């Protein structure tokens, strides 16, 4: 096998992928064929199509597969029967050209609804579908973020609760559309209008003093809100309104600093804010609520002193927060590597910046979470990575997949892993050689065969034909 591969490499460019294609065609495997389809010459594709689209069962599988190549989905849309059309309309990988074709040939409202909410549907398709008789189709058009503003404005006149909700949340709804919707919609719709970045100022003003807490809460979440309104909402008697205001990215630091907040729920959200003064951080680090301390332990502006203080917390989750804090100094990481709680140790073991001393302490572990984290860490010694690749637990072994520095021995073990998902995932590892990948073309799992074939085709490489 090794000889064959190196021979083939010398022929690279002349018969690129020919042996791979021949093998896939000889075996007649649907999934391997799907894997190489996009990477072969157009002339070969029609040969592959006989393998891929041979039976109706296979055509149905391909039409529903989000990993199917777009040009193949496009080909399938030509003269698709109802069963195929429905699957293609639903498949998020189906290209706009196929969607347009399906729209023209298909009257099933279910399929047309899928087309109207399809992420690849373009403005022209959506304009056409907005005139569909079926209300479900119109609802889907209203909810599609690609629907143009003039279509949204027209749909706003339809008396339908779901269309109104979709428009209140649509990025294409302008101020005039929202104002029109305000007069037609119920309280839920009004609440969403108030949260919309294009909401007219007059409506924002109404919401500021609205008795309905839903309106004030949504207003507090509007990123376009002005500072004075926001300050007023920060002192709202309802803590859910204050909570929404504290989360608003438009808020400046000082107002929060000045808050003397009684609700733990709101203080937890304060502890999550990106910019906090040293005073506030210190106060929150000693907050009586443990969730506040858990949040602040992760705050990047925490001082080394406060981190050291929280690293001695009785609560493992607070110490875990310190271990995950990007500002955590090396000496604390060493201390936390010897923490009694494995979940705290695992927090250190995930860090590429953990000092060698911390890693060597962690190597004593038998805990699955710590081993999993070490398995991902490029600073873990190679022989330990090989041991992790041999661990009893499939989830621990899989960590090797995510380690760009994993040694070949560990990678080859993963390529023969009993757990199919581990084999499917190791195929993507840059350091796994193509000879090992070629063995997986015979794998019992379709997902593994697909990934292996795709990888080999991408590399333009070719395993030897099996005798």
């Amino acid at each position, binding site marked *: 096998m090794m000889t064959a591969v190196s021979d083939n490499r010398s022929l690279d460019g002349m018969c690129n992928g020919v042996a791979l294609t021949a093998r896939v065609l000889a075996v007649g495997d649907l999934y391997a064929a799907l894997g190489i389809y996009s990477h072969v010459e157009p002339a070969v594709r029609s040969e592959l199509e006989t393998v891929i689209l041979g039976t109706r069962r296979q055509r149905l599988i391909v039409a529903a597969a989000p990993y199917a190549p777009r040009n193949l989905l496009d080909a399938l849309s030509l003269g698709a029967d109802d069963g195929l059309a429905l699957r293609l309309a639903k498949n998020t990988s189906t290209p706009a050209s196929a969607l347009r074709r399906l729209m023209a040939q298909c009257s099933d409202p279910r399929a047309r609804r899928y087309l109207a909410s399809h992420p690849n549907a373009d403005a022209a398709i959506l304009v056409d579908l907005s005139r569909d008789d079926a209300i479900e189709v119109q609802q889907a058009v209203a909810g599609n973020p690609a629907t143009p503003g003039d279509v949204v404005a027209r749909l706003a006149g339809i008396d339908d609760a779901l269309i109104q909700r979709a428009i209140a949340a649509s990025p294409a709804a302008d101020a005039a559309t929202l104002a029109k919707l305000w007069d037609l919609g119920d309280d839920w719709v009004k609440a969403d209008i108030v949260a919309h970045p294009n909401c007219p100022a007059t409506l924002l003003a109404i919401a500021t003093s609205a008795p309905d807490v839903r309106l004030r809460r949504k207003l507090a979440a509007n990123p376009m809100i002005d500072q004075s309104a926001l300050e007023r909402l920060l002192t709202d008697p309802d803590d859910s309104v204050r909570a929404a205001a504290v989360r608003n990215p438009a808020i400046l630091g000082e107002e929060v600093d000045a808050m003397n907040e009684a609700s733990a*729920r709101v203080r937890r959200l304060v502890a999550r804010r990106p910019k906090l003064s040293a005073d506030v951080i210190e106060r929150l680090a000693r907050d009586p609520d443990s969730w506040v301390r858990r*949040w602040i332990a992760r705050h990047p502006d925490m001082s080394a002193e406060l981190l050291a203080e929280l690293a001695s917390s009785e609560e493992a989750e607070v110490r875990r927060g310190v271990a995950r804090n990007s500002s955590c100094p090396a000496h604390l990481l060493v201390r936390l590597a010897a923490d009694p709680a494995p*979940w705290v140790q695992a927090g250190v073991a*995930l860090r590429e910046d953990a000092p060698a001393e911390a890693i060597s302490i962690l190597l004593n572990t038998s805990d699955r*979470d710590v081993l999993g984290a070490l398995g991902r860490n490029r600073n873990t010694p190679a022989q330990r990575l090989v041991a992790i690749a041999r661990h009893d*637990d499939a*989830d*621990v072994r899989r960590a090797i997949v995510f380690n760009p520095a994993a040694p070949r021995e560990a990678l080859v073990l993963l390529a023969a892993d009993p*757990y199919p*998902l581990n084999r499917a995932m190791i195929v993507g590892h840059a350091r796994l050689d193509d000879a090992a990948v070629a063995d997986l073309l015979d794998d019992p799992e379709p997902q593994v065969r697909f990934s292996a074939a795709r990888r080999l085709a991408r590399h333009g490489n070719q395993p030897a034909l099996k005798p």
Partner: protein
Amino acid sequence: MSEIIVIAIQRDGELRSSSLEAITAARGVKQAGDTLSVAIVAANPQGLAGALSVEGVDEVIAVKATDEFQPDLIEAVVGALVAERKPSLIVTAHTVDAWSFAPAAAIKNGLGFATDVMALRREGADLVATRAGYAEKVLMDIDFPGKDTVLLTTRTNVFEPASGQGSAKVTEMAAPAADIATKHEGWKQPADAGGIDIPGSEFILSIGRGVADEANVEQFLELADKVGATLGCSRPIADNGWLPKARQVGQSGQLAASCRLYVAMGVSGSVQHQWGMKHVENIVAVNTDPEASIFSIARYGIVGDMFEIASELENHF
């Protein structure tokens, strides 16, 4: 003119309420001239007869034996009832006890048989039952041509428990001889393990790739705490080290064995994940992608942003 018999079930001397649901199912196909009897095997069956004497029940057959569940004994009772009374229909609830005795009783007596029946009706002279197939994706109407007696188990929590005061006569029936092969040794209550207990949890809130960043995980731990759920996750979250592997639901992870409510947020629903939770009766899926495969197994679907739903949800607890 024929007889319908319901096999009622008790546990530790206490009547299972699903027995009353089975009576409702049987009552629904009782025709003029038919009699409806309910058989109960217990240490003190007379003590349970009152609760079974609901509207429409003509007779309670009290079999004095033991409160222990012995499939061999119940099968012998069914055999004796078939031989003596030649009922046209026998109904019992689709409980775990019925799983043990109903198929054996049916095949030994050559009965027409179907389990987990969700609806029951007469079409002319024919008895027609409805049950689900292909993991609940289809329904089937089934009948029992050529069968004098049909045994059905009825899905629980579908039929209303029968009520209304009846005036059933109580008949004693001697426990038939049976070769008893099992012996009750005790009960084991579901584990109330501290810490992370996905298999033992009745309510799991689970997060998937949609959570996007380690910094966002903490708020779902907080939410789970607030709503009284155990936080679970899909494989990528545990692979990244964002949550302990003990929280990973699915193949190679944990099985949500005791779960009654599973709220999946931002979980696409890979085959591996579904393996650990698709059996749960109440699955709620929250996902921005309306085509995510998790919706195909959910009882309730929410197409929406998991963060928005999560923060709105907090306002209710």
